[in-house]
């Protein structure tokens, strides 16, 4: 008996197998693979929890993030003094910490509750994580679409432009931009564009300029990606057919180019989110980020780092929060990349 005769596969089984594979779009296939990846799911859950905490911050936070209470400055609850052995509470030999169980994670140097500030700081990091990519996609998309579609010397010029921006050390450039924004628009002449931007900046707690800064320094990757896609799609027959029946350029771009480009764009941006978060953290660390008193994990680490020998909780709790968020986005990004990889489609 042959193997086939021993275990016959019926026609019904074969068609059922084919139907399952054929009917799935790339997205459904990707979602299925993504959710099988446990690490990516863990990352997603952490991010969702963070988003929830950030949105509910005004409700959950026990204290305001900016009210100062000098009497309780640098105090810490009991469990924190037990966690860090060198933080000795008053009463023990060599003790100096005022134990105050009202503050869940302790208070900083001017008496603000660290836990509340962490919650509000989550807002800053998450907004950067979502709006940052948006900015770089917008700038990159404009450049990429124009370059790809126009071709010729326009394409050449724009790509040289991209190469020049690649040569800029990103961190230095973003520091330069932020300095320009902060110092250049600190006392603007009222009524000018500068004053208008400064007002928006104030109302967002200092974040608009960070987004513009991120957008201006990381658009290059997007531009190249999108231009490549446009170039490869532009010559396809169905685009030519669409053009010949009079479809406007805009519609061609939306219906044909956009869906093809979306996958790599999502992957590239999700993987860049930890970089954006770290830029914002570092800018706040050196004082060029969000405006005081908006709390940012970076500025909290910077303030805490000065006192790390005596009050390590002030620096280490925000550092831990930052770590969790970056780590979650890294897992999610890796999972997305593996899930959306078209070479692995249907292979499980």
């Amino acid at each position, binding site marked *: 008996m042959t193997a086939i005769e021993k275990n016959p596969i019926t026609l019904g089984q074969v068609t059922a197998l084919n139907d399952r594979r054929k009917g799935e779009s790339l997205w459904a296939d990707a979602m299925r693979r993504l959710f099988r990846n446990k690490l990516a799911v863990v990352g997603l859950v952490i991010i969702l929890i963070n988003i929830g905490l950030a949105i509910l911050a005004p409700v959950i936070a026990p204290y305001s993030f900016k009210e100062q209470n000098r009497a309780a400055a640098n105090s810490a609850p009991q469990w924190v003094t037990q966690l860090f*052995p*060198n933080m000795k509470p008053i009463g023990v030999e060599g003790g100096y910490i005022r134990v105050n169980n009202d503050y869940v994670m302790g208070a900083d140097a001017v008496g603000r509750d660290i836990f509340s500030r962490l919650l509000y700081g989550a807002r800053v990091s998450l907004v950067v994580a979502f709006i940052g990519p948006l900015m770089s996609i917008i700038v990159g998309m404009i450049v990429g679409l124009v370059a790809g579609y126009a071709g010729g010397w326009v394409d050449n010029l724009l790509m040289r432009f991209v*190469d*020049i921006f690649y*040569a*800029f*050390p*990103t*961190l*230095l450039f973003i*520091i*330069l*931009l932020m*300095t*320009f924004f902060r*110092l*250049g628009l600190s*006392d603007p002449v009222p009524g000018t564009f500068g004053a208008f931007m400064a007002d928006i900046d104030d109302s967002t707690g200092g974040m608009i300029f960070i987004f513009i800064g991120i957008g201006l320094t990381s658009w290059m990757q997007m531009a190249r990606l999108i231009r490549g896609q446009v170039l490869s799609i532009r010559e396809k027959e169905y685009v030519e057919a669409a053009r010949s029946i009079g479809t406007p350029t805009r519609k061609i771009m939306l219906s044909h180019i956009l869906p093809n480009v979306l996958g790599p764009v999502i992957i590239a941006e999700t993987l860049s989110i*930890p970089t954006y978060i*770290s830029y914002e*953290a*570092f800018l706040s*660390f*050196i004082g060029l980020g969000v405006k005081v008193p908006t709390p940012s994990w*970076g500025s909290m*680490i910077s303030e*805490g*780092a000065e006192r*790390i*020998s005596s009050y*390590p909780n002030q*620096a*280490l709790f925000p*550092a831990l929060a*930052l*770590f969790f968020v*970056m*780590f979650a986005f*890294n*897992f999610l990004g*890796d999972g997305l990349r593996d899930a959306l990889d078209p070479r692995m489609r249907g292979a499980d």
Partner: protein
Amino acid sequence: MSKYILRRLLWMTLVLFVVSIITFVLMRAVPGGPFSSERPLPQQILDNLNEKYNLDDPLLVQYGSYIGDIVLPRITTEQLRPSAVEDYLINIPLPFSEYGALRWMNFGPSYASRNRSVNDIIEEHLPISMQLGLAALIVAIAIGVPLGIVAALNRNGILDYTGMGIAIIGVSIPVIITGPLLQYFFGVTLKILPVSGWGTFNHLLMPAFALGFTNSALMARLTRASLLQVLNEDYIRTARAKGLSERKVLFVHAMKNAMIPVVTVIGPLFAFLITGTIVTETIFGIPGLGRYFISSITGRDYPVIMGTILLFAMVLVLSNLFVDLIYAWLDPRIRYN
């Protein structure tokens, strides 16, 4: 090949020009000059300072003279360093000593420290940053590459998962996190390493590790991916079919090819580490160029800012060029014409 190098060098000069223009414009567009952030000076002194440093000239003239000082060599008979304004980086004494020396590359004086020129500052602080960058690079390679190799050889085994797990954690902790963590653990709790400062080997350990660890994760992932890809190639299968020992297959055939992408990433990695020293030096209190750069930004010390950015941009572009050349040399299939 040499035409390629020439073309790249010309491109590099163009790029640096544009970088300098953008930086110049951004810096000058900020109102308030370099002397307005200190205690308010009487108008007379301000006028004198502006005149001395030519801050009243139109922007184009200022930019022109700045770039001219850097790019155009000149022959002078003056002594080596008459003032902070006239400090040249390259001085070649001419045989006819009455004509003086050929001097080149003057980055200008520092506005903040009146007696020092930018060249002085760079000479003083850059070596420290370079040492830190180099140490971080060694850490990144020494940890990353073996980790990647071990992970690739034990694919989907426990070593692979732990290795890649460490790598993902490494990528998620930038220096801002590793810095204070290490400072607390080794400096405060265990008290075996100094928390900040510079000078001894102990001072180098924590910053180099903090800076290098994130990038070692990148190296590990890259090495693993590259080695896995090479091990799947046909020529490896041929080598095994010929009966070569696994060790020979690995170290003679697989490793050399797998290392190509790894080596080519070292160039940009080094440039990235150099810019990363900005963060590390601020955290660990190291007197390097990065930390000086930050203080010069708030102090509006234009020549130092310009000089540092140009320097870093130069390092970046040069390392990219270097890496492209190494890649062409290592992989005979790629030849630029």
